[in-house]
C-alpha cells in the first residue's frame, strides 16, 4: 500500500532495480528453494514405495512418535507459562522487570549445545542432582524427560516474545473496565485479555511448535541417541545420514520439511489476519 505513495524520484533507476531483484531471487533460490527441492528429490529418488517404507520403518516411526510427544508437552507448557510471564511483565511494573524481559531471551542467546549441557550438569549422573536422582531411580538425561526439558527451555521465548510487546501496547484499561462492570479475574481473562492477544498468541505457538519439532543441538546433547527410544526426527535423520543410508535419511528429513511447510502456511495465514486487524 505504502509504496504506491512513494514519490517517483525515490525509486532507483530501472537497471539497478532489476539487478537488486534478480540478486534477491537468485539468493532465495539458492539458499531456500534448492535445499527443499533436494530434500524431496532425494527422498523420492527410489520411488514412493521405498520412501513410504523408510517412513513406516520401526525406528523412524518411533522417532516421529517421540517428536510429536515432545512437542505435545513442550508447546502447551510454553503456551501457559508464556502467557503468565507476559501478563505479569506487561501489565505490572516492578523492580527488575526489564532485566527479566532480557532474561527471557537467554535460550535464544546461548548456543543450543550449551542449553543441553546445562541440563546434563543439573541432572546427569555426575551433575548436581545426579546422586539424588540415581538413588530415587529417576532418569532424566539420556531419556525422554531430558529431551522434553531441553526442548521446553530452547522454545520458551517464542510465545513470551510475541506477547510482551502486544500486551504492553494494549495496556490494562480494558481489563480495568471489565472489573468495574462486575467481572471477576477469570472472566476478565477469558473475555477480554485472551481475545485481544489470540492472533499474536497463535503466531507464537506456531513458531514454538516448529522449533520444538526441529530442535537438534540441545536435544542431541541430552538424548543419548538410543535407537527407537530417545531419537527424535532430526536425530534420526542425522544417524541415517552418517550410516550412508541417504534415501532413508532424506525420507525422514522430508517429513520435517513437510512439517515446516505446514508451519509456513499457517504462519502466513495468521500474519495476514494480524495485518488485517491492524489496518482495521
Amino acid at each position, binding site marked *: 500500500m505504502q509504496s504506491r505513495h512513494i514519490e517517483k524520484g525515490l525509486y532507483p533507476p530501472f537497471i539497478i532495480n532489476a539487478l537488486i531483484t534478480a540478486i534477491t531471487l537468485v539468493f532465495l533460490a539458492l539458499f531456500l528453494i534448492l535445499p527443499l527441492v533436494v530434500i524431496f528429490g532425494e527422498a523420492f529418488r527410489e520411488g514412493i514405495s521405498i520412501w513410504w517404507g523408510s517412513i513406516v520403518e520401526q525406528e523412524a516411526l518411533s522417532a516421529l512418535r517421540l517428536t510429536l510427544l515432545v512437542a505435545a508437552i513442550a508447546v502447551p507448557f510454553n503456551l501457559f507459562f508464556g502467557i503468565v510471564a507476559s501478563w505479569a511483565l506487561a501489565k505490572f511494573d516492578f523492580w527488575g522487570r526489564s532485566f527479566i524481559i532480557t532474561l527471557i531471551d537467554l535460550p535464544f542467546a546461548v548456543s543450543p549445545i550449551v542449553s543441553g549441557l546445562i541440563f546434563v550438569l543439573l541432572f546427569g549422573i555426575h551433575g548436581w542432582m545426579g546422586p539424588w536422582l540415581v538413588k530415587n531411580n529417576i532418569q532424566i538425561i539420556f531419556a525422554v524427560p531430558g529431551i522434553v526439558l531441553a526442548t521446553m527451555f530452547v522454545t520458551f521465548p517464542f510465545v513470551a516474545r510475541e506477547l510482551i510487546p502486544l500486551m504492553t501496547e494494549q495496556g490494562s*484499561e*480494558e481489563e*480495568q*473496565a*471489565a*472489573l*468495574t*462492570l*462486575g*467481572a*471477576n479475574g477469570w*472472566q476478565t481473562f477469558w*473475555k*477480554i485479555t485472551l*481475545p*485481544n492477544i489470540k492472533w499474536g498468541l497463535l503466531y507464537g505457538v506456531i513458531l514454538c511448535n516448529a522449533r520444538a519439532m526441529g530442535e537438534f543441538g540441545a536435544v542431541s546433547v541430552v538424548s543419548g541417541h538410543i535407537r527407537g527410544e530417545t531419537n527424535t526426527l532430526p536425530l534420526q535423520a542425522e544417524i541415517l545420514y552418517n550410516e550412508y543410508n541417504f534415501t532413508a535419511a532424506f525420507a525422514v528429513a522430508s517429513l520435517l520439511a513437510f512439517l515446516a511447510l505446514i508451519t509456513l502456511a499457517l504462519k502466513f495465514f495468521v500474519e495476514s489476519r494480524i495485518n488485517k486487524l491492524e489496518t*482495521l
Partner: protein
Amino acid sequence: MSISLENISKTFNGFKALDDINLTFEDGKLTALLGPSGSGKTTLLRIVAGLELPDEKDNSKILFNNEDVIDKPVRKRQVGFVFQHYALFRHLSVFDNVAFGLEVKKRKERLSKSEIHEQVFELLRIVQLDTMADRLPSQLSGGQRQRVALARALAIKPKVLLLDEPFGSLDAKVRAELRRWLRKLHDDLHITSIFVTHDQEEALEVSDRIIVMNHGRIEQVGTPDEVFHKPATEFVMQFLGDVNVFHGRVDKNQTLLLNNAKEEANIKFLVRPHDFEILLENNNEENIFPVKAHRILTAGVMVKIEFVDKSNHLILVHLSHDSYGEIQLNLGDEVFLRPKQHHFYDN
C-alpha cells in the same frame, strides 16, 4: 447515593498525588472535579472506584451512603466508570460492549437473553446508537465511542457514575453538544455523578457543584457561581478565566494603593478583563490606570482590547460590541481604566 471521603492521601514513588482529601459528594448531584493536568483528579476518581488504594488504609474512609467501602473490590462497588480514552472492548460489538456488565453476573442474578437484549437496546436508544449495535468500536467516531462507554457504564445500574475527562479528546463542536446532552441525561436519571475536567468552561456550564483541585489538594468547593464570583484563592481566580494581576499595598488605614511596584507590594489585586470601566478622562480618582490601546480584536463575541500601562504591562479588557461602539476607541488612544470588581489576595 452520597459519597464521603475522609483523610485520603496517595503517594506514587514518594510523590504526593493526593494530600489528605476530605470531601462529600451530594446525593443526585453532578459534581465537577476541576484542576490543571497532574493535580490528582484521575487519581481521586480511581480511588473512589476502587481501581487504586489510598495510602494508610486504616486511617481513611470512603463512605457510600455511610457504608465504608474501602475494603470492597472494584467489581463489587457498582460504580459506572467512563475512562478518559473510553477503554471499549475492541473485539466486541457495540451491543456486546454494553451487554458485558449484564452477562458477567452470577447465574442466579443474570437476566435472560431476551431481557438483556431489551435492556441493551433501551440504553442504546438513550445514547442514540441503536442503529449501530453491530459495529465494532473501531468503526465509530470519537463522540459515538464516548456514548457507548457511557451506555456500558449505565448498564450495571450504577449507584454512582464516574467520568474521567469525558469530552477531553473530542473536537469543540461535538464537545459542546455532548456536554448539554450529558446534563440532560443527568437531569433525567439523577445518578450521583462526578466528572473530571481541566476545562473551566465545561465545569461551569454542566455541574451543580465544582471542586477545584491543585497539587493534590482542594482549593475550593462551591457552586459554579460561588467559584466564579467568589474565588477563595488566587489559584481559583486564575484558573477560572483570564485575569489581570496588579501589585499593591494596603496601608495602616486599610486604604488600597495600587502602584504595580512589586517590591513594596503586600497584596495582589486581581481583575477580570470584563470588570473594567473605560474612562476617557481622569476625574481625579484613586486607583485608576492611565493606559494606551495597543491591540484591538473585534472578531468574536466580545471585543478584546490589549492596553499597556506606563511600565509596559499588558492589561486585557473585554467589552461588549455595544460599549465599544459608544467609546469609539482607536489604536494608540490614551484612556483610563477603572476596576469595577476586583479580588485581592495576600502576596
